[in-house]
């Protein structure tokens, strides 16, 4: 049995909330640079250059790369032989988010009531927390700061099994096309296929935690990912919807078993401010 202290979690989460908003991470940064070499439109190139400069300023000055510093979304890998002392895991994470968002001068972007829109929550909480219970005694917190511009253009549909692969591809392409400039392309397109209604959306979100350039281990799925990257980049949307061939930096797919009558597909779009961090406790 491994013991992990509440305070350690608070500190680590607080630091990660800040780091993730200031430092875009090398996978995204490198893909900006790579895209700049292949981007064909003038305005598209201009935007990629600005994004590179923006990322450098944010990292150097330790300021948020984007003013939408997002909702903290965590996928927690909790080993069943790991014991947390001093308080609950949920409150440790939320306390870490409050501390990180206030110490780092990050934006409070959560309303307590989605209908009346009153801002009555503690600093940018609650975080969205998913816990996966696993064998072993490790605790890994996968943190992301997810912006609303891209989240708002995400979509979920229960397709018919007869829609098949083409139906899945069409839905993905259509979602990216409709999102256009609103989701702040270049995008990372996260896709969940299978599971059920809620599981599918979770798979789409989870896929976004895989760094850019890392393919799904299944050959069938990695081929589909590559095909979709190509097709999406032919749409002509380009950086910020100004035209060009850099619409998606990557496509990530996670697939699971589902009911014989279903074909659930969820698409969770992420903007170029794809902020992810792995905290290993």
């Amino acid at each position: 049995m491994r013991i992990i202290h509440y305070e350690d979690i608070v500190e680590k989460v607080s630091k990660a909330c800040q780091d993730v908003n200031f430092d875009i991470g090398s996978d995204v940064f490198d893909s900006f640079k790579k895209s700049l070499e292949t981007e064909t439109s003038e305005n598209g190139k201009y935007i990629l250059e600005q994004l590179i400069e923006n990322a450098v300023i944010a990292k150097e000055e330790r300021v948020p790369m984007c003013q939408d510093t997002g909702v903290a979304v965590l996928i927690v890998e909790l080993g069943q032989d790991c014991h947390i002392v001093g308080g609950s895991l949920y409150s440790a994470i939320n306390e870490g988010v409050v501390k990180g968002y206030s110490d780092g001068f990050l934006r409070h972007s959560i309303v307590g009531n989605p209908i009346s829109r009153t801002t009555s929550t503690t600093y940018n909480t609650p975080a969205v927390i998913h816990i996966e219970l696993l064998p072993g005694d490790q605790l890994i917190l996968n943190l992301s700061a997810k912006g609303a511009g891209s989240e708002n253009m995400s979509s979920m549909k229960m397709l018919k099994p007869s829609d098949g692969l083409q139906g899945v591809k069409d839905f993905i392409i259509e979602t990216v096309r409709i999102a256009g400039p609103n989701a702040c392309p270049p995008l990372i397109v996260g896709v969940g296929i299978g599971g059920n209604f809620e599981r599918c959306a979770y798979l789409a979100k989870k896929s976004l935690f895989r760094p850019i350039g890392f393919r799904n281990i299944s050959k069938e799925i990695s081929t589909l990912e590559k095909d979709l990257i190509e097709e999406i980049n032919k749409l002509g949307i380009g950086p910020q919807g100004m035209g060009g061939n850099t619409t998606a930096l990557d496509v990530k797919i996670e697939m699971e078993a589902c009911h014989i009558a279903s074909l659930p597909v969820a698409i969770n779009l992420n903007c170029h401010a794809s902020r992810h961090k792995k905290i290993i406790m």
Partner: protein
Amino acid sequence: MLSIKIISPFDQKTIDSLKSGNRVLITGTIYTARDAAHKRMYEAIQRGESLPFNVEGQVIYYVGPTPQKPGQIIGSAGPTTSERMDKYSPSLLDYGLKGMIGKGYRSKEVVDSIKKNKSLYLAAIGGSGALIARTIKSMDVIAYEDLGTEAVRKITVENFPAIVINDSYGNDWYADKEINQSK
């Protein structure tokens, strides 16, 4: 293509000279407002009350900045998605607003109203909040302070980068981009 330097508030000559797809660098005064401030201003117009600033001839930037660190003028300040303001924009344009800066599509009503009122819609680069903050030289909260990040701010900018999306002639860069690219 070089960026065109323009002064805000925009005069009619500047507006008429710009075409969708033009890159500009804006210097001058701009007001910030997003969802909640737009709702309040819209409701004030409905009730026949005056607005917190005279919108005639002015430019509104859709932004909710991050809190500024000590010593900073403003926190990160990139654009938010404009379509959420679509419901309110035509009445502000009828009231004399001459420019809007945000990101993403506008509704047909807004596009028509931009043409009718001979104004402009420009996009700033979404997700470049740190870079844009450097172009902001002063910032004062002038209304709705209780709205926090959504309060109305008066800012002065120097070479604020943006791209014209909807010009006063009815052109729409998002819709026309593929045609423009192949030219």
